[in-house]
């Protein structure tokens, strides 16, 4: 994709500034999203059975399926984090990230709508809340929407500084 500023730019300095800043901003976004996945996956990978129970607490699938999803999810999250960290297939990784986040937001929303009393299990723990604990669905959804914005940025502008993608490009 070649971005050329052919037509007379309205405000040349701001446009070129954006062009210089964007790839670096993109790098921050990419590394930020990578950190989110690595922290989220890392928090769950030590207790796969617990991760399965957290998925089961959403009460949207049979327990046997929830166990498999719960076990696979932390590893997929870690792998996504690593892809974003090194910048390999950034647009694809951003797309998968966005899809996963949409699923998470949907899951939390349906739990909220049905009045389930659960912890989202986003960064470990999860499952039913104890007596006297109240769920914090709103902040959890807002946080995930924030991450979704990061993924959206990379979907639109996947070319960032210091990725493997552009190193491959030069080969």
């Amino acid at each position, binding site marked *: 994709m070649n971005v050329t500023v052919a037509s007379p730019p309205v405000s040349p300095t701001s446009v070129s500034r954006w062009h210089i800043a964007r790839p670096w901003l993109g790098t921050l976004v990419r590394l930020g999203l990578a950190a989110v996945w690595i922290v989220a996956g890392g928090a769950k990978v030590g207790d796969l059975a617990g991760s399965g129970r957290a998925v089961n607490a959403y009460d949207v699938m049979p327990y046997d399926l929830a166990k498999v999803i719960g076990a696979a*999810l932390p590893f997929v999250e870690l792998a996504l984090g690593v892809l974003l960290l090194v910048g390999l297939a950034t647009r*694809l990784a951003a797309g998968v990230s966005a899809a996963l986040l949409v699923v998470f937001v949907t899951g939390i929303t349906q739990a909220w709508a049905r009045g389930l009393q659960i912890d989202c299990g986003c960064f470990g723990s999860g*499952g039913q809340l*104890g007596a006297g604990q109240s769920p914090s669905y709103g902040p959890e959804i807002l946080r995930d929407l924030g991450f979704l914005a990061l993924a959206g940025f990379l979907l639109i502008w996947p070319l960032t500084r210091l990725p493997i993608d552009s190193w*491959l490009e030069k080969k």
Partner: protein
Amino acid sequence: MSTRVGQKQASRMVRDQIAREKRRSRTLWTSVAAVAVLVIAGLIGWGVVASQDSGSYIAPAGAVENGTGIKVGTGPVQIDIYEDFICPACGQFEKQTGATIDQLVSEGKASVVYHPLAFLDRASSTQYSTRASAASGAAAEGGKFREYAKALFAQQPAEGSAGLSDDQLIEIGRSVGLGDAFAQAVRDGKYKPWTAHVTDEASGDGVTGTPTVRVGGKDVQPTTQAILAAVG
């Protein structure tokens, strides 16, 4: 001259074409590689859990037929209690309702199946939930499940702590009259696979938190009043 320009243009077009195709195939292959990485990662998780599942367990004496809990009493109404030895709400429940339930059992009104599960291994640095549950299995083998469970709740460690050590678990066992066989079973972690079975089956039965109480298979609030009302 014009032919040369034409040739130049043509060769540039070919070069561009080749470059574009090269880029396309590179994008394709990096995408394939990335998808492969994600799929393999998922399969690893699946594989790890599948291999953990295969463990066989020994249910202690006093366990119900499918091994999912310890049965106490012979009353006609069945109460199922799912609890985790480190869960503060379970400690509260035991303190407030334990005596009532013991009474229902001794009066022959209800039988209780205790499911000592390990949801909260993360709440201690030593997987206290699993160790305590496995120790309660060993206590059941020695015929003192209920006494031991009560003693454990009376000395419940806080969430976020290291929990009680195996030596302390054994010491508590001795205080309720359990002997060397119990101590050995705790040290060997003999009933840990059983704990995993209890935990897994409880999740399969839709238990997502502790304490969960069911009377006649139906969820009931874990309060004295609600349980008495449900038992009737």
